[in-house]
């Protein structure tokens, strides 16, 4: 009898030892949550006061090596990262402030997004008039993204953040503040000192950007790329022709093959890179360019 039990133990041990690794990894995958990005939330300040009308929350995504997630306009494929917040009586999260994206090219398909890591910034409005608060408010979010490398995987997670009321926020940290400062540097600036116009001739947008006299950020040593905020407006994968002369930029961008209506404004982000080799950002500005159709 004892030998029989030992035999069973031996068989169970042998079977579990010889089981294919995939059997374990599959169950691990099902229970382990997102695999290609991890999310953390942190506030801009250690606490909010009744006099505050708004503050920022950083939604930081750490992205697995070699993978990327998407900007608000994902480009030719992919899906914009999205955040859905639960309703809260005094805190109202607004639209995402998007850092300027990078470009990913694959087989004639160009997409816009982020690799390594990104911090999306969320302005949060504070309104005490609707409700009284006796404990630290907690904001809950559902964050969804599509992670792509040679394959694409749709992932999502829930996250929450506790905001301190006139006392240190439990989720506040100095490193979080640094991440928010770094993210703010990557938010495209809104500059008023640029006269922008575009003309649509057949399938070309001809853009002209004339800065004020004291604006000296358009250098002919830089490389520029215009990221359209909306999909279906420009051909993302077609080379953008850019001339910079005496601080004035002229660009020719092919319109999308899917654009079958007139547009009044070309909205997007112009990013200037200081050199082709190191790909360092020199300038990133939001543009809302009036379009004159031929």
């Amino acid at each position, binding site marked *: 009898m004892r030998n029989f039990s030992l035999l069973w133990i031996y068989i169970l041990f042998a079977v579990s030892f010889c089981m294919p690794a995939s059997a374990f990894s599959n169950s691990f995958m099902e229970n382990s949550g997102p695999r290609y990005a991890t999310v953390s939330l942190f506030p801009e300040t250690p606490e909010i006061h009744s006099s505050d009308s708004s503050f920022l929350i950083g939604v930081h995504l750490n992205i697995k090596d070699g993978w990327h997630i998407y900007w608000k306009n994902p480009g030719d494929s992919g*899906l914009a990262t999205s955040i859905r917040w639960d309703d809260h009586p005094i805190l109202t999260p607004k639209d995402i402030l998007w850092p300027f994206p990078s470009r990913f090219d694959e*087989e004639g398909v160009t*997409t816009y997004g982020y690799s390594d890591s990104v911090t999306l910034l969320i302005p949060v409005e504070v309104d005490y008039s609707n409700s009284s608060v006796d404990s630290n408010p907690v904001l809950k979010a559902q964050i969804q993204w599509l992670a792509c490398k040679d394959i694409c995987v749709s992932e999502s997670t829930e996250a929450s953040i506790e905001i301190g009321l006139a006392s240190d926020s439990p989720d506040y940290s100095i490193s979080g503040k640094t991440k928010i400062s770094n993210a703010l540097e990557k938010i495209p600036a809104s500059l008023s000192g640029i006269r922008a116009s575009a003309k649509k001739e057949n399938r070309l947008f001809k853009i002209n950007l004339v800065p004020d006299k004291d604006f000296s950020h358009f250098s002919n040593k830089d490389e520029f790329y215009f990221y359209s905020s909306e999909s279906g407006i420009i051909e993302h994968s077609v080379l953008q022709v850019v001339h910079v002369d005496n601080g004035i930029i002229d660009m020719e961008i092919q319109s999308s093959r899917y654009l079958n209506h007139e547009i009044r404004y070309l909205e997007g982000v112009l990013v200037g890179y200081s050199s082709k080799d190191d790909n360092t950002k020199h300038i990133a500005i939001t543009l809302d360019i009036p379009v004159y159709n031929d």
Partner: protein
Amino acid sequence: MAMNTIRFSLVFLFLFSFTVHSLSALERRPVEPGKKAPDFTLKDANGKSHTLSDYEGKIIVLEWLNHECPFVVKHYASGNMQKLQETFKDKGVVWFSIISSAPGEQGYLTPEQAKSVTREKKAKPRAVLLDPEGKVGRAYQARVTPHMYIIDSSGFLSYIGAIDDKPSTNVEDVETARNYVSEALDLLLDGRSVNTTTTQPYGCTVKY
């Protein structure tokens, strides 16, 4: 003898460069609504050959397919794609699902796997066509899965683009989406022309 070799080599080089040029020209030719749909012949999962031009007189749907792409999963998990395939098959529309994933890439299926997955998903296309070299995908400039093409009964492209107006991977979005494919097919079957002939497709890149 040497002269013959040179002549043969020159003829070979000429024919080779002509072929390469013709193929790349075919890939570069714009594929747009209102233009003739590029003809092709592909084998289906059962080994049967299908030539597009043999179906002239019928309305044809080409659906670029990768069953592992989350956007495709949305349309098959919700039963949306199967419902479209079945509804329009009953109205005489020929529906081809085309797999252009290269061997080793996501979405690639051997003929046996394609048959099995089609059964498992209860999909109802006329045939699942296998394009592992991506020739037809590239000729049609198919970028994503699902990328949808509708060809009218005269062989002209009537619609190119997304399946619907909700670019997401959420199954619940299917209910509220405006389906461009069913809209275009209804118009064509009614003898009318398609209003929305092109939209920005959404999905995963085709894994050529």
